[in-house]
Every structure is written in C-alpha cells, then in structure tokens.
C-alpha cells in the first residue's frame, strides 16, 4: 500500500467512516460550492469615501505611506516626487499592467523605466494592486506578467498603484472579486496580501522595518 493509502486508511478509521459516506460527502461538496461567509467585522463596512479614509489610516498604522492622485496620468509625477524626496535615483521597475503603461511617464523624461521581473538590482518597483482592503490597510496583488511577484519583494521601495474603487471593506469582498476575475476555485500562481513594509522583531522583540522585503511601501490611490 502506498503512503497515501495508509494515511487515508488511518484517518477514515479514526473518523469511523461507514457505508457510502453520502452525508459527509454532501457536506463537503456543499461547503466547497457555497463557501459560506463567516463573521465579517463591522470595521470596514463603510460608504465609499469613509472606506477610502479607513484604508489610508490603517495603511499608515502599519508604516505605509499613501498619496492620492486624480488620474492615472498623474501617477508618474507622484512616483518621481517620491523618489526625489528620498534622494533615490530616477529609475523604476514595472510590469506589463495596461493601467500602468499610460500613467504619464512621458511627462517625466528623466525617469528611467525598466520592464519585467526584478533581478534584485532595483531600488524602486511599481505594481498595480488588484484590490485594497480597508479593514486592515492591506493590498492584494496577483502574480503574472502584469505585475511580477519579484517586484513586490526585491526592491527597497515598493510603490503600489490602487484604484480607489477597488478598495473593499474586507477580505471576503476580495474573494468575490477574485472569483469574478479567475472563476470559482481558481487562483493566480501567487496572490500576495501585503500589509505594510517588511519587518522583523526577531532581535529582542524590537520591531524594525525593512527585513528581507521592501523597507518602504508607498500606495498611490487613483480617484
């Protein structure tokens, strides 16, 4: 017998599985199909404007910074301003996300744009989030050519563009969006939920930002 059979046999014996097991199978099929929503905290259940405020406040609480622009065309100027304010070189890495292509880069002639996955040599990377979660100030990012996962983790500064209308109250609403994008039960290779810049408390419980991932996280909310 294979290891799989042995483990399964032990589990079934312990659970005392009997007969055709139709009842248990039915319960499992139903749960997987319906994916019942549990308790969703009130915190994020707010009208649009207040939900945006909550997102920004929660993001600030975890050490992220936020900026708001009125149009995608203004994103590049905000990126430039961010880099300048921190004395960073005028270079960014970004993926193929369509919404990022027409973000006003032509207005920032000095800014060097590198495309594709990060090779570890980038100081700043720009991604587009799939959604934001107001309850916790969290960003949801999909892997793929549009927003390579390496951009989320390798650059020292991670700049994330987020459409205000993609800010949801809670994680459960993001699951609903995800199913619209990918279909029920389907996932991108990686889904990253990012809440603030990387940190560690491993030495004497002192929290320090910038462990192995980005030292800083900047969210540009497009109205």
């Amino acid at each position, binding site marked *: 017998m*294979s*290891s*799989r059979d*042995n*483990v399964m046999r*032990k*589990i*079934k014996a*312990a*659970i*005392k599985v009997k007969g055709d097991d139709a009842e*248990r199978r039915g*319960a*499992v099929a139903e*749960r*997987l199909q319906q*994916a019942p929503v*549990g*308790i969703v*905290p*009130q*915190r994020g259940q707010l009208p649009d404007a207040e939900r945006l405020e909550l997102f920004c406040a*929660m993001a600030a609480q*975890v050490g992220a910074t936020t900026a708001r622009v009125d149009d995608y065309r203004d994103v590049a100027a905000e990126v430039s301003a961010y880099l300048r304010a921190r004395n960073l070189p005028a270079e960014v890495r970004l*993926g193929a996300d369509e919404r990022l292509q027409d973000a006003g880069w032509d207005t920032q002639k000095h800014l060097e744009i590198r495309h594709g*996955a990060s090779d*570890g040599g980038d100081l700043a990377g720009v991604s587009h989030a799939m959604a934001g979660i107001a309850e916790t100030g*969290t960003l949801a990012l999909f*892997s*793929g*050519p549009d927003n*390579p*996962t*390496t951009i*989320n*983790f*390798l650059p020292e500064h991670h700049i994330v563009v987020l459409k205000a209308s993609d800010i949801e109250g809670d994680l459960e609403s993001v*699951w609903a969006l*995800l199913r619209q994008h990918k279909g029920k*039960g389907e*996932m*991108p*290779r990686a*889904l*990253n*939920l990012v*809440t603030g810049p*990387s*940190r*560690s*408390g*491993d*030495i*004497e*419980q002192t929290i*320090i930002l*910038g*462990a*192995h*991932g980005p030292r800083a996280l900047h969210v540009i909310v497009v109205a």
Partner: protein
Amino acid sequence: MELAAKHFKTAAAKALVDAQLQKALGNVEKGFIGKRQMAADALPEFEALRDNARDIKNHTLAHLDLYLEEYERKVTAAGGHVHWAETAEDARRIVLDICKKAGARTVTKGKSMITEEIALNDHLAANGIEPVETDLGEYIIQLRGEHPSHIIAPAVHLNKEQVEGDFRRVHTHLPEGRDLSEPVTLLSEAREVLRKRYFAADVGITGANFLIAETGSSVIVTNEGNGDLTQTLGKVHVVVASIEKMVPTLEDTAQILRVLARSATGQDMSVYTTFSTGPKRPEDPDGPDEYHVVLLDNGRSSMLGTEYQDMLRCIRCGACMNHCPVYHAVGGHAYGSVYPGPMGAVLTPSLNGIEETGQLPNASTFCGRCEAVCPMRIPLPKMMRHWREREFERNLTPATARYGIRAWAFVAKRPKLYRMAVSLGMPILSKLGGSSRRLKSLPFAGGWTRHRDLPAPEGKTFLQAWAEQQAGKQGAAR
C-alpha cells in the same frame, strides 16, 4: 533535534540561574502580551471569530479525508505535485529526492516548525546539500547550532550582544570596525548576506499555515518577506505541511487569519500573507518551475478521534507560550522538545509517546492562561491532565508521587481524619514559614520543594476560617 524532554527539571533549574537567558525572557512578556490584548480589544468580533475558527477546524477534521482528496486534486490540476509522508523519515526522503533531482547544492528555507519536527536540515546537510535559514531569527540560531526556543520567535532567548558576537564570528568578510550595536544594524547585515543566498539557491523550502481544499493553495503568513523570496526565487518550491493544516475555502481562511496574527504578534494582519497555487505558468516572468507539497502525517491521524483531537486545531500562533508562567521562567529550550510551552506539552507526547515526555504535561501550574488566549479554544490544561492520567495509569509517575497521591486519597476520603491532620499541621507550617511566608523545604516533599517554594499557610484551615466568619456575621446581625 534529539528529544530531551525527560531532562526538563534539570534544564529548567539551569535556565532559572542563567542571567543572560532571564534577561532575554523578559522580552516575551513585554513584547507579546500587551500587543495581543490591544489587537483583540480593537476588534469587537474577536471572540465570535474565535468560536467560528474553532468550528471551522472541527468541521474540517471531521471531514479531513475528503478535504485532503479535493486539495490533492486541485494541486495536481494546477501543475503541482503532492507527496504523502507517513513518518518524518518518509518526509525527509521525499524532500531529499526532490532536491537531488533538481541538482541542488544549496536550499533556502522559510521559517517552518514542521521541518524542525522532521529534522530536515541535518538530513540535507548529511547528504551534501546546504540548508540556509532565511528568517532572521532562524538564521541566527542556525549560526549558533541551536534550535528555535519559540515557535514564532525562534531567537527570543538571545540578547543583541550575543547576535553581534555570532555575526562577527561568521561574517568575517565584513570590516571589523563596523557598528553592530543595535538590532537595526544587525538586521541590515543579515539582509545583505542573505540576499545573495536566495539567488544562488536551487530549491526553496517553506512550511504552510494553511492548505486550502477549494483552490489547492498553500498559504504562508510572515513579516520579513524571506519566505516569499525563498519560494519565488528558487527553481523548485517545496512546501512541507502536516495534514491538519487543511481548511475548506478561502472564506474559512479569512476567518482564521483574523485571529492568527492578533493572537501571535498583536498585528491585525501579518505583513505578507501569500497564497501559492502550482508552479510558474507559461506567461509568468517569475516563480518556481516546480511546485511540490509534502503532506506529513507523523502521528496526527492517531490523534483523530481521541481526547487529543482538539490539539489538531492548533494554528501555531504561540499565544499559549507567550502567556505561560512556566515558559516565562525557563524559556523554550528547557522543554527539550521541538514544540515548547503548553501546546508542546500536549503535542509532544502525542508525537513521541508519554514514556519519554511525561515531564512536559507536568510542567504547568494549570493557571489556565493558555486556554484563555488560545484563538482556537483548545482546552490545553484539560489535555495536559489527560496526559498526566495516562502517565499515572502506566506507572510512569515517580514512586514517591504515586505513594503520596495514594496517602492523600486515603486521608481525603476520611473527613474527620483529614480535618484533624490539617488542623494539626497548619499552625506548624505557618510558624515554619517565618517572615518570608514561604517554605523552602519540607520533610517527605523534597522532590516538590526542590523546584519551587511552598507558600506558607495562614495558620487556620478553610473550615476554621469559615466557621469564624459565619459566627462573626451572626454576631453582627444580632
């Protein structure tokens, strides 16, 4: 690591006089308890979420075989491979085979207790493959040749001066005069050193906080980002996870996530919660070429259907040890087992047998704080008591304790004799207690007082005090 749980008492005695360790342990209470309380207080639904998290896991465990089947189907459909391991040895062999097939010389590792449980690092190293721990705490203890003393803060037993010493000893390529006096400079140095290792590694190994049946995803919850670099930059990603990590759906995961980080570090969400599903896809510019999951049983299926089943709800947040007075006093290494603290005192006998581990369920004051803070509402003290009963039944308890319990039972079942004995003994013990009100040793109870003081009784028995109080009340009423 080698199981040394039977040396708990000696190890604890040493830990109590280790000044360096005692200083570091102060950070546990300081760093965890208040933060958890604040995060819990800030979420009105927290207690209801704990109930729901408990119910989700109970449902999952009652249908574990079916969810595992569905999970396996989804992983395979996404292009991943599922390997089943009955024992730690099976899991080590499977991981080594994957590494060998990938021609691996070094592997990076995200923080994972399960790979500690199966002693994976030693096995890889013995077979010529270098394992590199990338979590800051894990990296530090790997340099020291130690094991984690806490399941989420592996180096919590150390002070920064010790870490500085280790970095100077190992990072000899860096300038001697560099400043390493603060945690921030130590972290920067580790970041620098480890960056190169991610790119050089052939295989990245992580654990999993959850396995989701609905989607075939494995989930890791981290703060540093090392787990993500480990699993994104290696050519092969190997997930090692035990079978009880299963949850049915994304919605169920969201429920448990809300209690996990709050209970662990007092964060609403950890920085990175990553859902991985299969290997790199044709259009992907990054990600691993292969994705493997090693599903480990190693004794879990034998806990199902027993009085220890509730332990399989554990999500490894560490709240029980963060709130345990015994853990605070002696730290994690004294337990001599992979999993320390209250959750370890229940889990270790299940995995390794009570014969070698009987001291662990006895290393508790039964104060109940572990159960009070457990996000999954695991009745830890009750389960430790079950283990003490098993130990007693099998005659594993020390002879003096067994006779002592018998003698006490004889007296306790005879109320007149009991009252006479305590009313004679109480004033004597009270007098012996002196001004400190503590007894450092007692005849016939040396085994007990060797490890703690006995608080001296007040001088009256409960029944005497009660009678006086009642008489006083009647006097006042009159």
